């Protein structure tokens, strides 16, 4: 049993990123616990029978639109011998059939067919008391909001609206405003670091002014921009809200940003032909939603980033870029172009995936060390700036209670 050092969360022990027992606890209590896990967008499976395969924690699930149009999230595991029955990431089916003994399931997970259930020529067959309805695919609880789909292994989940809380709900609805979404595509990368490093990265806006030359130089996200760092009442969700500088001239803040290149100019300026599209003045909102979702709005690129843990020392980051059905062709082209900022080759996010690799290398064999998380104090309150690690402290405050640490 591990003991968290001290009372607060301004120090984070390195064993939370490496210990297999901690990781096993996370699969059970974080991803498998009382959490709404993001599993996809409705626009990925628009028609009845459309499905996608994804994961809740490490558990493979099928997200499928049933004949009635309702969305089911089913454990991708045959009730007979446990095989993964769906072997494609996207597709369309009327039923799911296990290849081994051809047990067949309806789109709502109900077991509809068992070959040789009454035997062959009087031989074999299932026992008299075998009931098909006792052997359906396991169903997860499902909720949707404005096109985003969430699932939970817990049966007694609060509503998504209560789960997000009023402050985070407003920001969620800013991007997911009810307009039909249009998928632009998916990017996937396996990052050799603990999954929590991804949340820390987004909950730490202070690094962005130092690490990301691209953001800093073009004023997309800078410590001297008007900004806020906000959490829900539990601290598990957070948002960074900022406005692009129009004055890009050097100042006292940029003097400390070694990455600031005043003279840099793009050869193809279309990369940053940003159009205002939301009613408020924010130009970037990065929202993190416990336990596995980041909602990204930077310039005109919109994406969900789904965190899928792969053991204690790696995770898959699945980016789903999208726009709205009512985007015109120019906006669609702009979103695809702005997507260069993000993803596995992103002008901005590339720095992050490399840094997370370095972080995991650094802490990999340090049993007793701890990270220092004291920028902006030791508390967990909201801040009206981004020179702070308060959202990381708030995250670990909730994490400690969820994990019993």
């Amino acid at each position, binding site marked *: 049993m591990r003991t968290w050092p001290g009372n607060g969360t301004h120090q984070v022990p390195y064993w939370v990123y490496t210990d297999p027992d901690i990781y096993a606890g996370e699969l059970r209590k974080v991803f498998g616990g009382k959490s709404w896990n993001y599993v996809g967008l409705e626009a990925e499976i628009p028609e009845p029978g459309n499905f996608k395969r994804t994961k809740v924690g490490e558990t493979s699930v099928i997200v499928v639109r049933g004949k009635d149009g309702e969305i089911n999230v089913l454990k991708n595991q045959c009730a007979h011998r446990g095989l993964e029955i769906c072997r494609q*990431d*996207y597709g369309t089916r009327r039923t799911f059939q296990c290849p081994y003994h051809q047990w067949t399931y309806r789109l709502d997970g109900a077991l509809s067919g068992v070959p040789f259930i009454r035997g062959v020529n009087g031989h074999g067959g299932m026992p008299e008391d075998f009931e098909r309805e006792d052997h359906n695919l396991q169903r997860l609880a499902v909720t949707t909001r404005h096109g985003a789909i969430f699932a939970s292994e817990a049966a007694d989940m609060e509503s998504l609206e209560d789960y997000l809380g009023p402050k985070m709900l407003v920001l969620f609805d800013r991007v997911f405003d009810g307009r039909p979404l249009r*998928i*632009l*595509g*998916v*990017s*996937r*990368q*396996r*990052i*050799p670091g603990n999954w929590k490093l991804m949340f820390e990265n987004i909950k730490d806006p202070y690094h962005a002014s130092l*690490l990301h*030359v*691209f953001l800093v*130089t073009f004023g997309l996200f800078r410590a001297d921009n008007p900004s806020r760092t906000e959490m829900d009442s539990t601290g598990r969700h957070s948002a960074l809200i900022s406005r692009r500088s129009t004055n890009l001239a050097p100042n006292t803040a940029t003097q400390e940003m070694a990455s600031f*290149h005043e003279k*840099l100019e*793009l*050869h*193809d300026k*279309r*990369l940053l032909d940003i159009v205002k599209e939301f009613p408020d003045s924010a130009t970037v909102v990065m929202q993190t939603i416990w336990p596995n979702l980041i909602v990204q709005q930077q310039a005109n690129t919109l994406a969900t980033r789904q965190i899928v843990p792969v053991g204690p020392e790696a995770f*898959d980051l699945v980016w789903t*870029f999208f726009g709205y059905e009512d985007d015109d062709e120019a906006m*669609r082209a702009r979103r*695809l*172009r702005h*997507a*260069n900022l993000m*993803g*596995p*080759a992103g*002008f901005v996010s*590339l*720095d992050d*995936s*490399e*840094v997370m*690799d*370095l972080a995991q290398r650094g802490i990999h064999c340090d049993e007793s060390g701890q990270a220092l998380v004291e920028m902006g104090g030791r508390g967990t309150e909201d801040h009206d700036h981004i020179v702070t690690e308060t959202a990381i402290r708030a995250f670990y405050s909730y994490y400690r209670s969820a994990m019993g640490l």
Partner: protein
Amino acid sequence: MTALEDWQLRAEIEALYARGAELLDEGPISAWPSLFTEDGSYKAVTRENVDQGWALALMLCESRAAIEDRVYAIEHLSLTIPRRTRHLTSGLRIAADGSGWRVEANFAVFETLAGAQTVCFAAGLYRDKVVRDADGVLRFLERTAVSDSALIRNSLVIPL
């Protein structure tokens, strides 16, 4: 075209592909954009997105200028762990297409991070359009690298 002209064209296209790999692997990468026409485009995409009919690219450069921006970022802006790549190209298929040629070829890209073993980073298909530019040199009007795997090993730094 005569058989000899076909053979000469093939040799010239193969030289363009070899030069492309050389500039990405051995450098100078800053010269790589010069293999594209001024209105030339470069895209790295995954088979998954192609199959789903989704236009998203891992890298999308819609002009030589955008390719220059990407190369500048690789050399000067991005924080990356030092690495070396090795691009292997094989099985060129060349078909005349209007003012140029549609060229398909298989590729494999090996990646070696500092201090680590070499791994196969990506394999896939080039779907390109090659044209003879105003100065008589063959260049890419379009180069699309389609990666077989959708899952990138951490970061895509050097173009496929």
